[in-house]
């Protein structure tokens, strides 16, 4: 910059007083007319905290109903430490996903930590807790009979996922893929919670592979559904 006069000139233009932009008058008038034609009072969305509390309430309600329906067989198998630590980890993850969902409803929301880091931190935290606190079984036992848990887990995830999507769509989510993945994560997490407290097989391998697999599949399904919705929306807007 010190040795280049042209650079200094361009830089000063960049920081200098704003030149009046070339105004697209026709566009402005057209836009004003369209907005005026459909101008109705709207009620602003509640704060992020209240929206997140709503998602946590949906999570808690579905989890309580489903655990009551399937029976708390898994909770009975866990000791006090396992029960407390697992509950804290799952609740913390549910709160984080709820905050992420409520922020995605509002464009331009603050994001201090990327969503991928949160997902990674939860996955690592859950894996560590399970690996340390729960007993390991042998490989054939781990692989046997686990598919039923994953299958039921996916079925369990569908209704709460639909309810959360309905509430999230009341905002203005900008990225369908991101919203789909987050709703998938919330629904998968709920399913994981229900399986954790209902399934009587509390071995580490089973929990990580077959219960954790539900979250992975739910996130993937949500992402693909979001991508498909995006393609449909693009096709509709095509001239």
């Amino acid at each position, binding site marked *: *910059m010190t040795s*280049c*006069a*042209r*650079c200094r*000139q*361009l830089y000063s*233009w*960049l*920081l200098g007083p*704003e*030149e*009046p*932009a*070339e*105004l*697209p008058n*026709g*566009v*402005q008038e*057209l*836009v*004003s007319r*369209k*907005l*005026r034609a*459909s*101008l*109705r*009072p*709207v*009620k*602003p*969305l509640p*704060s992020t905290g209240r929206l997140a509390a709503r998602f946590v309430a949906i999570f808690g309600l579905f989890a309580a109903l489903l655990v009551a329906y399937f029976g708390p067989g898994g909770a009975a198998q866990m000791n006090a430490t396992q029960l407390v630590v697992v509950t804290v980890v799952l609740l913390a993850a549910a709160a984080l996903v709820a905050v992420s969902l409520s922020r995605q*409803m*509002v*464009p*331009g*929301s*603050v*994001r*201090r*930590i*990327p969503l991928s880091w949160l997902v990674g931190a939860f996955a690592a935290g859950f894996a560590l807790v399970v690996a340390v606190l729960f007993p390991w079984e042998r490989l054939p036992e781990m692989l046997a009979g686990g598919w039923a848990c994953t299958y039921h887990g996916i079925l369990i995830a569908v209704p709460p996922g639909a309810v959360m999507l309905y509430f999230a769509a009341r*905002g*203005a989510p*900008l*990225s369908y893929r991101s919203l789909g993945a987050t709703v998938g994560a919330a629904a998968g997490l709920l399913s994981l919670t229900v399986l954790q407290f209902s399934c009587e097989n509390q071995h580490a391998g089973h929990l990580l592979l077959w219960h954790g697999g539900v979250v992975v599949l739910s996130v993937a399904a949500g992402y693909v559904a979001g991508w498909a919705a995006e393609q449909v*929306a*693009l096709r509709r*807007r*095509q*001239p």
Partner: protein
Amino acid sequence: MVRYQRADPEAADELVRRLTPLLFGFLSGPTHSRADTEDLVQECWLRIHKSRHTYRATEPVLPWIFAIARHTGLDGYRRRSRVDSREVKTERLPERTEMPELPGMSLKDELGRYLDQLPESQKEVILMLKVTGMSLEEVARATSSTVGAVKQKAHRAYEKLRRLLGESDGYRRKS
């Protein structure tokens, strides 16, 4: 913005008058015709209108507006890519040449050409920071990223701009 949410038509007109030039500048690009940009601006306003209930009076307005504008631009790009991939070209277009120096080119045009050479993610950060005058925090909100990521993109953009300007200056001296 709050008056616009309460359906005040004058507030809507005022917003359109003040923000359309900014949106026009942000959504224009080297591969867009003026008509394409005008379409994008109109689409962006319709999205803003549909999403107006999500604006909160306690939050800054520019990140909210530019987050919507950014996604309108991204969707426009995806749509154009989809059309381009299906169209059969009847004529061969001339390849883009590397930044010819045109005599009498205005400073603004020249800067625009330099900015067009940046990756889209870096260009949008520079436009928001330097042309629109948003803060790092506001740009982070508008681009759904963190302040650290915005700083990194801006730093890379400055480095590339510095290199381009250096090359251009060297060329001028030689000629």
